[in-house]
């Protein structure tokens, strides 16, 4: 597979997406889960840039990727603030330790 082909980028992004989803589902540390979310977002970014370069002929996809990067930063800021609040109240950032809400 040559680096000049669209499909190689799509395969990379599909792998990245799966890894992100796997991280979110298996990790118990809240920071790691947030990192998994970032992987998912970046897999979409690769898709956008690749599609924009190879098939669409306009810059829409690359602009989309820039916006995603910006929003990922905003989400990380909010996410880390919430994780900090969790740490102050529960003295851990284990997602499964925060279990006061049940039936």
């Amino acid at each position, binding site marked *: 597979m040559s680096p000049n082909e669209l499909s190689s980028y799509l395969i990379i992004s599909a792998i990245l*997406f799966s890894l*992100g989803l796997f991280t979110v589902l298996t990790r118990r540390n809240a920071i790691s889960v947030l990192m998994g979310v970032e992987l*998912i977002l970046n897999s979409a970014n690769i*898709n956008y840039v690749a599609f924009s370069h190879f098939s*669409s002929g306009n810059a829409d996809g690359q602009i*989309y990727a820039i916006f995603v990067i910006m929003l990922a930063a905003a989400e990380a800021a909010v996410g880390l603030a919430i994780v900090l609040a969790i740490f102050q109240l529960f003295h851990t950032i284990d997602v499964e330790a*925060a279990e006061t809400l049940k039936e």
Partner: protein
Amino acid sequence: MDLKNVASLSFFYPEFILSATILLLIVVDLVARSPRGIAMIALIGCFGALIATLDLYSAQPGWLFHRMMILDNFSLFFKVVALAATILCIWMSLSSNEIKQVHEGEYYTLLLTCTLGMFFMASSSNLLMAYLSLELVSLTSYVLTGFLPHNRRSSEAALKYLIYGGVASGTMIYGMSWIFGMTGSLDYAAIQAALSQSPFNKASLFMAFIFILAGFGYKIVFVPFHMWSPDVYQGAPTPFTAFLSVASNAAGIAIMIRFFFPGVSRALPSGDWAFLSGVEWPQVLLFLSMITMTLGNLCALNQRNLKRMLAYSGIAHAGYMMMGLAVLNNDGLSAILFYLVVYLIMNVGAFLVVAMIANVTGNEDIETYRGLAWRGAIVPAVCLAVFLFSLTGLPPFAGFVGKFFLFSAVLKQGGAFGALALVAAINSVISLYYYAKIVKTMFLDMPNPEDKTVSIAVNNFTLLIPLTVLTIFFGVYFSPLVRYTSQSLRFFVK
């Protein structure tokens, strides 16, 4: 009408009023520190935006900002719904003890920002705008959910909301990237044109739709993207829960109808919609709708916390509303819009009573409602009974009319939809059990001697009585509302 940036501004003043109010709130919060004054400014800003939105009904529909947004009756309807929910939420917050603990300037600022995001969601006509507006609503919702200081439940709910929301919106943009790759455009009209011209790989298009459904589904709260909702509804401040349960749901439905109907389907003159490229997403919606309402109702059966029970009942109601999406015709869509208005009134009403009782008793357990009617709270008890029976769908309340329109839209399609209507009917019966159980607790169970009397200040009734009256009023005289919702179903296509 396809307007450029500057020309669009003259059709954008509801958003301007909201943005100006948000900025004003930040400044006033710095200098004045008067909670009640800040709430009043927020309320006045919302009413101003409401008047401006209603004024826009006379404007020519069209694209704004280089086809990023659409101005049409459909988007205006959802803006009115979002503003109504915000006004009710601010009103509820004024008398809520929970909100008194928080920094109120920030609270109202974030709430109005969330409303602004819903405005953009309702009018987005581009995949980029759809994602940005959805994230604006999500990010503010995460913060507002975790807004109660030193409250374990609130922070935990925010964390769960954040994780599910992040994954769902990430999955959604991954799906959107495939749509972009296949059609070469982010614009809904261009996507539709591309889809109706050339044949596409059905499997990959189907996968892209499923991924996108994850993002919308988490906003509308349907199975399997519902897991966050009970925890968030229980943990968040009650006025915000009421707001979230109707406004966020409505905005999700707006963005979903906009994408799946004018975006990737074609309107037929008969009022039906044909989906393009042969990708059978309505079948998926049909099954999801059945599963959603069944799971929501079954989980609601043995809840001990009323807020959590209302969360599961909200999932069930999302399932009922999805029936209108699955039938793929204009009758179904206008039934959804009608149901949304009715759901706004009765669900906010139910949460209002929950907030009033929680102000006195300090929690939302169903146990504390024992013999409520005989402990000095006869008016809230009767009102809650009205809202709960309306949520069940019993006549003569508005919920009955809403369900009637949904069912008739489904039954008219026939075929496999008969089974859907049957499942929905069985579900309505199941839901009667848990709604009626609360009414029984309030009226038929006698209070224990140790139960305190619940005294409710009269000024709390300013919102409760109108909502109750509206629930009954729209149950018997619904034709103006029907006319309004069917007029709201005008999409600007070209």
